[in-house]
């Protein structure tokens, strides 16, 4: 087991820029070689440099282009998608606005139509009333005319009957046959007077 001796010396020597410290004991001086021993610069340097270029070349050739192409393409896809979404939203807003306008127009139209319909209805009612009145007047007039005709016809019939009755009565009264032809003038006159 390594003992924890000379820890301070050890730690300080690891980072000390001086290879030798004159005041230290000879057996402790072995520690100082640490720094020099593991800092050998050798052909590892060349090997590492070559490997560096080889790997950079490999990455440049086989790793970077496909990855960055995939990333760029996805970026583009996403950007396009976002743009499309924005366009869609914009369109939707426009559509909403248009719909609102349409609805407003439709409402206005509807109310106008209703107004017109009401007006028209009132007109129709008025017209119907007028027509009815007219019709009624016409019917009344016709009926009156008919009545008058009937009355006249009845009067005529009555007059004829009265005349014949009067003629019969007169014939009876005169007990003889009256010459209808000779006296028809007088009879007609009488009928006209009835």
């Amino acid at each position: 087991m390594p003992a924890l001796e000379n820890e301070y010396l050890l730690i300080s020597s690891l980072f000390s820029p001086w290879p030798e410290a004159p005041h230290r004991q000879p057996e402790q001086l072995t520690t100082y070689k640490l720094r020099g021993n593991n800092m050998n610069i050798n052909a590892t340097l060349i090997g590492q440099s070559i490997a560096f270029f080889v790997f950079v070349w490999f990455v440049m050739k086989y790793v970077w282009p496909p990855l960055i192409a995939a990333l760029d393409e996805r970026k583009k896809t996403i950007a396009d998608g976002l743009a499309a979404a924005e366009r869609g939203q914009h369109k939707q807003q426009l559509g909403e606005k248009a719909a609102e306008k349409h609805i407003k127009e439709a409402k206005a139209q509807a109310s106008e139509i209703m107004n017109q319909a009401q007006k028209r209805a009132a007109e129709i009612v008025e017209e119907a009333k007028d027509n009815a009145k007219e019709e009624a007047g016409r019917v009344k007039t016709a009926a009156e005319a008919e009545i008058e005709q009937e009355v006249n016809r009845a009067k005529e019939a009555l007059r004829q009957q009265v005349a014949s009755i009067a003629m019969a009565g007169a014939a009876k009264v005169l007990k003889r046959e009256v010459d209808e032809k000779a006296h028809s003038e007088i009879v007609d006159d009488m009928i006209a007077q009835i």
Partner: protein
Amino acid sequence: MSSEGITSSEYIKHHLQNMTYGNHPEGGWMFAQTAEQAKEMGFWAFHVDSLGWSFGLAIVFFFLFRGVAKTATTGVPHGFQNFVEMIVDFVNDSVRGSFSGKNDIVAPLALTVFAWVFLMNLMDLIPVDWLPMAAGWIGATFFGADPHHVFFKVVPSTDPNVTFGMALGVFWLMLYYSVKVKGVDGFFKELAFQPFGKIGMPVNLVLELVSLISKPISLALRLFGNMYAGETIFILIAIMYSAGLATGLFGGVLQLGWAIFHILIITLQAFIFMTLTIVYLDMAHQDH
């Protein structure tokens, strides 16, 4: 490797030593058995653990991301694709924010740097003894090595070779694009005629060269310093486990706290490395 007879300093030394394969002046090409041998190998040596882990992590990263890239759909992403896309998008945003020029290499470069540095730093959160012990056991069982001489450092970004290797890579790219965009004369003018005009050319050159060279150095050292210090603290905490129950429990609490704090550091360091890479390349592309 806290076994009998190891002192704290040996324990730490063991943890901070890379597994080194190199040309030893006496033994030829071999694994270094001691730190001294590793040092004697000089420049022609490789840190097998650093390289192995950094390559391995880079390959893991590459195949994970490549798998997603092959099947990436443009539809709704699921699961791991989501995660990968999040990182790619984050890197892409960083590049767009900081890089004004037009260059197809910068974004993949930034992604590589970020993911790679992050994964390398992430190795710091694995308890410090697990992988070295496993490596020691494997070395002793299959290769007949002395486990005390199997060194294994699992965090590549605590190896200055790794951080400097990456920073140098960035530096070469900076130089290349500076010359490509501005031309040799344009690049020279940028270095020589600022900030004091043509009269102050020597001073300008000194100033600008220092600032140019300090860029990769600071890039590498910042990452290395942060990760090295973090790793060292983990190791120091790990020493406490062998110093009695109370100390060990306290060490456990410390390790948990430091690990949670370290999550922030490793992400931040990866992010800083990436951002500075982007900024430096942006400066290289700016034509005055």
